[in-house]
């Protein structure tokens, strides 16, 4: 390790945020595809990132985790303006990133870099490692001044050699081509390239996901060392929770374009608050004997489409703890079943033909049989009292093929706060966007219409 490196500021002391994100949105408006026009589908915006806010402190590693399609990579790219934000504000060291003009943006990109998952695809196969490393310096016409006895080219090449060594490769490899390196070595090259401009902030987008575990560990250790050596601030985007726990100081969990929970790593892993975070952590198989035969209660179904995300809490269609109305007494799992039935009706994803078929009734007159079949499919246990009566009325409506009325009957009694009000992150060090935890008072209730189309 070189001694002239900047000392890393203590992450705990660094109070001023390097980066500050407020209500960031990134929507994609897709072109009509051939299939869309064929099916006469209306094109809608894809709400990849839908109003997220967070700060990153100097010298810390903030983890951004979530499953595919949650918007974590889009967030990283939008922060660096590799994609244009739809709305919101991003401040980098006090500068307004979204308002930067071309020159300012160029200067910003010197200070904020990105490393991608696939080191091979981000390296040009026809360039030598030396060319690859020197390229960013050329683009920025750096260094500004050189000692008289050396050319710019020489200085740049020296620096490339230096950085190769710093990432654990040897200076002698500078004239080789990417294909001569293993995956782990190529990722080291990708990291060296990001470091050449001496940035303060690096977005690491799944930097170890493509690597084998033995090599992944080498690269994680390297990232740790470089952070100390250069005083770097990282945004670490990943889906692997074990890796995130290992390397991050704080973690933000994303689901369907929202941050649902944010907190110091140990707090979040030891005491996850949001039902999604809980399910996510519970799902991870641990490499330990105690894991043997462990049965996870998995989340049902798939993540809904970001084209038409659920109203209110984005997680409510799968949440095992979705909150029943105060005046309705119902056990939690039955309430989940009622909500599943409602979701299916409202999203038009219910085929009554098959239910009638199973009821063995071609003229569709044996309603009791129809309702029996329905109950068998949706409810593990019987309902009772007013709950039962409401479901009965809804099934009657379905038996008459009146989906809208069925949905309305269920909605009237069973509407949840989770679908009406979008929960937000509270202030404090470990907030969770969920109605199970106290939500800030709002002047105008941001009630959203339930998605019934």
């Amino acid at each position: 390790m070189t001694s002239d490196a900047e000392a890393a500021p203590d992450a705990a002391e660094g109070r001023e945020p390097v980066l500050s994100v407020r209500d960031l949105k990134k929507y994609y408006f897709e072109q009509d595809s051939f299939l869309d026009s064929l099916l006469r589908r209306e094109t809608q915006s894809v709400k990849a990132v839908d109003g997220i806010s967070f700060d990153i402190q100097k010298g810390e590693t903030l983890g951004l985790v979530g499953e595919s399609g949650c918007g974590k990579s889009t967030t990283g790219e939008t922060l660096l303006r590799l994609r244009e934000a739809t709305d919101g504000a991003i401040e980098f060291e006090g500068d307004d990133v979204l308002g930067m003009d071309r020159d300012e943006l160029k200067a910003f990109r010197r200070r904020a870099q990105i490393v991608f998952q696939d080191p091979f695809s981000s390296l040009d196969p026809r360039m030598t490692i030396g060319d690859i490393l020197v390229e960013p310096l050329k683009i920025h016409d750096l260094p500004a001044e050189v000692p008289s006895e050396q050319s710019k080219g020489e200085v740049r090449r020296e620096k490339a050699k230096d950085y190769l060594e710093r990432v654990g490769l040897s200076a002698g490899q500078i004239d080789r081509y990417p294909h001569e390196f293993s995956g782990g070595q190529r990722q080291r090259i990708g990291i060296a390239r990001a470091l050449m401009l001496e940035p303060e902030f690096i977005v690491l987008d799944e930097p170890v996901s493509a690597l084998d575990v033995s090599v992944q560990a080498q690269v994680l250790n390297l990232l740790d060392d470089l952070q100390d050596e250069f005083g770097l601030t990282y945004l670490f985007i990943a889906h692997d929770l074990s890796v995130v726990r290992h390397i991050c100081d704080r973690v933000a969990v994303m689901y369907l374009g929202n941050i649902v929970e944010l907190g110091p790593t140990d707090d979040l892993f030891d005491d996850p608050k949001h039902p999604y975070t809980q399910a996510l952590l519970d799902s991870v198989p641990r490499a330990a004997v105690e894991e043997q035969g462990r049965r996870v209660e998995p989340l049902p179904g798939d993540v809904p489409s970001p084209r038409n995300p659920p109203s209110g809490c984005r997680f409510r269609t799968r949440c095992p703890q979705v909150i029943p109305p105060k005046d309705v007494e119902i056990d939690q799992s039955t309430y989940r079943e009622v909500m599943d039935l409602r979701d299916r009706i409202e999203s038009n994803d219910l085929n009554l033909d098959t239910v009638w078929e199973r009821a063995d009734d071609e003229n569709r007159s044996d309603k009791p049989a129809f309702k029996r079949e329905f109950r068998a499919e949706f409810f593990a246990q019987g309902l009772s009292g007013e709950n039962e009566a409401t479901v009965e009325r809804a099934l009657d409506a379905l038996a008459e093929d009146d989906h809208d009325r069925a949905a309305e009957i269920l909605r009237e009694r069973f509407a949840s706060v989770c679908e009406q009000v979008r929960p937000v992150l509270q202030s404090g060090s470990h907030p969770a966007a969920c109605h199970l935890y106290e939500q800030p008072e709002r002047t105008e209730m941001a009630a959203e219409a339930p998605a019934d189309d």
Partner: protein
Amino acid sequence: MADEILKVRDLKTRFFTEEGQVNAVEGVSFDVRDGEIYGIVGESGSGKSVTALSLIDLVESPGRVTSGEVWYRNTELAEEFRDENPEAVDGEFVDVRRLPKGVRRSLRGPSFSMIFQDPMSSFNPSLTVGEQIAEAVEVQRRARANPRRTRSRTQGYGLGKMLVDSLVPSKSYVQDASMDRAVELLEQVGIPDPVDRADEYPHQFSGGMLQRAMIAQALAGEPDVLVADEPTTALDVTIQAQILNLLRDLQRDEGMSVVMITHDLGVIARMCDRVGVMYAGEIVERGTLEDVFENPVHPYTQGLLGSIPDLADPAPRLQPIEGNVPSLIDSEMGDRCYFADRCPKAMEDCLQRIPEFDAEKAGASDDEHRVRCVLAERQYDESQALHDGHFEEQEVAADD
């Protein structure tokens, strides 16, 4: 104790490429018992997936299974071939590799079935999911009626065929009874509205749903052994949890045996009873989950376990294995422990020969914790370690 359903002995698979002969699987042996989930874990290039393909005879040119035995317990086949081909029969077992090709192929489905990481590649995009599963059902029926002649449009689906199929749309010719069975299978693997979903095309399924559909297809023949090659690697962790539960339930309900092949030690830990660790085409350590995870002896196994961050217990620093996966090109492999150049405990003795499992013979009980390493029989003694840089010097010498 449960009986063995499969006994794999000294299996070798090689690829004959322009760069030379690649020893992808280098003498692999293990047993799979009735109703167990046997795990094979390794990193990329360890030969674990080629082992899977070799088991069910799906290795494609330029690769070939060059030697070894795959003993499969099947009394009917044993009777059938006892006179005709006594070499291929041992008690209730037949050596699948010595059976005629047609018979071997007919075992795919009713005896062995396989699921892959990427379900998209094993479905034909121009046929509905239901049709393809129904077809698998029909293939199995025909196979039962006439084991020597089977063909299918969906088995071993490859890019070439995909092209042909997209140019020449196929016509459906499955019978109603097979379609009904397909719907049943879809229901069994937890697909809601199976009747409707059966009429959809693969691209209309989410990744997790398509994985379920592939499992349904694999179950069509009610296989004795299901080989699952990285079945959850492409899936998100919450969907992975669903699929792992499903596999465990099916394995128990159907009484199948499963060979679970993965790079993920966590998946192995949750699912498997016994496990083999592969490195450079060999199983280097095997035993019960406890043997391998709690008392690993092989330095590679130790290194692998030291490399992964633990969700519950974040170690301050990981202990990676230095270096990279070795070349499997025959001419470069040499007669020494293949792990030697990365092994922190390598000694002079490790360079003399390829370490073997001790006292191993075909048919011997496979119960013990076994390790392919000179340290299996003695304590590590630091004074015998090769000096730092031993292998770099060799490389330099070789370059000159």
